[in-house]
């Protein structure tokens, strides 16, 4: 176990996040002699896609699927590369001078980096429906974490709602693990097909095509699927029923667990706080960092690899990590022998090929992204969609001003659960684009730290002198 005190004061390369992008980047750089540390906040590496890859109790390989076990090789390579891999390490600050604030077991350190690769991946898109804050309503990602890390599937009546490839993957994994799913409520608008069809030829050639079809068939054979255009979680102390409508006809299902998921979006918090420029991606309906061909950001020395650079999946994430690492190695050790980038770029291109089809097909409907009325937009500060809409109409032009009026985005989640919703609501009310409206200016710590942790930072020479004097 590496403790905060064991860390050097500086490393040539700091990689943040131990998913496919981070593992591949750290392995490549460390192998050619770059002093590399990888910080990952989970107990083991793997990220979400390969979560608990070195420790999962789910040993039957068919349950999580062969793609999951691809993670073993990445984890092994990183371990063998000589990179220092630190789990349980929460990075809570990064700035344009590439000073990294990290906490390990309640102790904080500031580490200097010559280069930084942010590989903090994706997060689930907010899914603000009426009742989404009730106990018993969770994200599908949280359910998948329980399955991978602890081998747990939910007992009781379970309904999955939303759309996107990961929803179907979780359904399949749950069924294979012996779980039961009472219904899937598919929120994907049917008209998405019109736009997606333009990209169907590419998709047919991509590795996703066959896998996706098989997955859909597997799940549909065992679970009733309803295509719906509204969902509400109902209950007082906890969710008791899910109410959904289908072509104007309302139905209800009793439910113990409602799992929501409408795709993933880049987790931008750390890059945003470091001053990295972002732009709105209208196809993926999210902000993505502005990056060059080597995934270098607008801040010198900071790259963003993996799904944090825009959603493209696990295999693409590893390739992006390698490209970012090669750029870092070239800057740090120009004489080092690095792999040919041409082959990596081609592989990346193959992976990204089917993406346009998937993105257009799974684009969530506006009604599931831009809630109305008393539906909560910001969970931490309990701000409703109506409050945000009214304030925008009153003249509030952006999310940062909105913080001052409603405190939305100022709670412990730092806007992770409301940022996109608030931006889209303001854009809708002010009849402008999300790009024009912009996103929260995020402030460190991007993950809360305790006063005790902060007080534990080593006392600097200057401060010691000041006290002695």
């Amino acid at each position, binding site marked *: 176990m590496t403790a905060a005190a064991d860390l050097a004061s500086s490393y040539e390369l700091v990689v943040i996040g131990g998913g496919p992008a981070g593992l591949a980047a750290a392995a490549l750089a460390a192998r050619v002699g770059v002093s590399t540390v990888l910080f990952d906040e989970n107990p083991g590496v793997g990220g979400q896609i390969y979560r608990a890859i070195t420790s999962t109790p789910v040993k039957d390989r068919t349950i999580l699927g062969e793609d999951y076990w691809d993670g073993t090789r990445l984890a092994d390579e990183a371990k063998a590369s000589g990179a220092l891999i630190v789990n349980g390490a929460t990075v809570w*600050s990064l*700035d*344009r*001078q590439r*000073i990294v*604030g990290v906490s390990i077991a309640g102790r*904080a350190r*500031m580490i200097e980096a010559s280069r930084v690769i942010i590989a903090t991946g994706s997060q689930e898109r907010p899914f603000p429906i009426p009742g989404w804050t009730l106990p018993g309503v969770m994200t599908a990602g949280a359910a998948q974490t329980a399955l991978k890390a602890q081998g747990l599937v939910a007992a009781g009546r379970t309904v999955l709602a939303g759309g996107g490839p990961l929803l179907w993957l979780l359904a399949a994994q749950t069924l294979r693990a012996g779980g039961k799913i009472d219904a899937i409520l598919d929120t994907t608008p049917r008209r998405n097909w019109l736009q997606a069809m333009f990209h169907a030829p590419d998709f047919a050639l991509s590795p996703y095509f066959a896998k996706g079809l098989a997955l859909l068939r597997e799940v549909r054979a065992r679970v009733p699927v309803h295509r719906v255009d509204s969902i509400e979680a109902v209950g007082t102390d906890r969710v008791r029923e899910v109410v959904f409508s289908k072509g104007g006809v309302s139905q209800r299902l009793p439910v113990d667990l409602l799992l929501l998921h409408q795709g993933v979006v880049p987790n931008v918090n750390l890059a945003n706080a470091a*001053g990295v420029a972002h732009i709105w991606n209208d196809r993926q309906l999210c902000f993505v960092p502005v990056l060059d061909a080597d995934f270098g950001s607008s801040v010198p020395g900071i790259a963003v690899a993996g799904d944090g650079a825009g959603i493209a999946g696990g295999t693409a994430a590893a390739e992006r990590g390698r490209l970012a690492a090669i750029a870092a190695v070239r800057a740090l050790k120009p004489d080092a022998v690095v792999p040919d980038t041409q082959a990596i770029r081609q592989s990346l291109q193959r992976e990204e090929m089917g993406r346009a089809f998937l993105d257009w097909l799974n684009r969530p409907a506006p009604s599931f992204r831009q809630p109305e009325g008393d539906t909560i937009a910001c969970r931490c500060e309990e701000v409703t969609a109506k409050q945000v809409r009214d304030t925008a109409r009153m003249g509030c*032009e952006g999310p940062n*001003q909105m913080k*001052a*009026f409603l*405190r939305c985005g*100022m*709670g*412990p989640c*730092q806007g992770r659960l409301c940022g996109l919703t608030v931006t889209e609501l303001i854009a809708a009310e002010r009849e402008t684009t999300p790009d024009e409206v912009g996103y929260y200016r995020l*402030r*460190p*710590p991007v993950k*809360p*730290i*305790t*006063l*005790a942790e*902060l*007080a*534990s*930072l080593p*006392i*600097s020479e200057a*401060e010691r002198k000041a006290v002695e004097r």
Partner: protein
Amino acid sequence: MARTADVVIIGGGIHGCSTALHLALRGLKPILIEKDYAGRHASGVNAGGVRQLARDIHEIPLSISSMDIWERIEELVGDDCGFDAHGTVLVAESEAELAGFRERVADLRLRGFVHEELIDAAELRRLVPAVSEHCPGGVVSRRDGAADPFRTTQAFRRRAVEKGAEVIEGVTVTGLVRAGANWRVETSAGDFEAPRVVNAAGAWADRIAAMLGEPVPLTVVAPMLMVTSRLPAFIQPVVILRGRKLSFKQLGNGTVVIGGGHLSTPYRDSNETVLDWEKLAISARTVWELFPAMHEATIVRAWAGIEAYMPDGIPVVGKSSTSEGVFHQFGFSTHGFQLGPGTGAMMAELVATGSTNTPIDGLGIERFQAKRK
């Protein structure tokens, strides 16, 4: 064709907005030009302290006139600005420090100022029960308090507009030149002309002064603040220290704002600040020692607002030394928020009538010219 106004105000912080409102209340037609949006920088993101306590002697008249306005702020701007008056307490950490405070309070009495009041250990514990055992007393200013800075700045802006001021945001001043009887303010959105100009440009005010041939030794600073998650209510007044840098207050919603003047690195051309966590750790250790109740607190956010600091730590307020019709109102050196209401009222009087009844001796820009010679 240049647009014309009675007064052009450069800068949309609390000072510019307050001056705009008070000019409009006098029946003048001001145009305020702000490069970002009102309250974007220090005025919107400061600690919110509304404090007469521990001020430089030259500022006390402005501070007292401001306090009178704060106490009827809703009447003036139509919003209570989140102002509450639970006092500010300056905590002494040793007997020696307390002795120094005793002298200061006595000196203020001789000058006729009675807002600072020495308190013993018992009164300190009554006001701040959570304070650590080692503190022997302090000073209180009972009318002091705190307000919500962004809300306050926006309230001044809004009321100024309602009363006839025009506020133009997202526009940068690029030049300031004489044009007959007027000043021509050149901007990224065309020219504006007015016989009088107020420079309330905060951390960027030296650039305006330089256009007038009166350079000032302004330092761009960004003092850091951090805020905790919600805690049960345990302290009402704002607490400040003298020996170590700390200001500390619990807001109505339970969160605790910790500041005190440790500085980040500001980048005024890109509106960015880079925080210095080693210095914030010093604040964390100070809080740890002073308030055992804070040991379990979680820090959820830290930030800094960009502003101007003068070499002598007091603002530049008054007429330009080179340019008839131009007035300065900047350099508040990390403690200008409380002064906003009263300084705006004084400035409007000065601009409109050519003189003011509020003493502002010692705050003029000429103090820097004299030193240079």
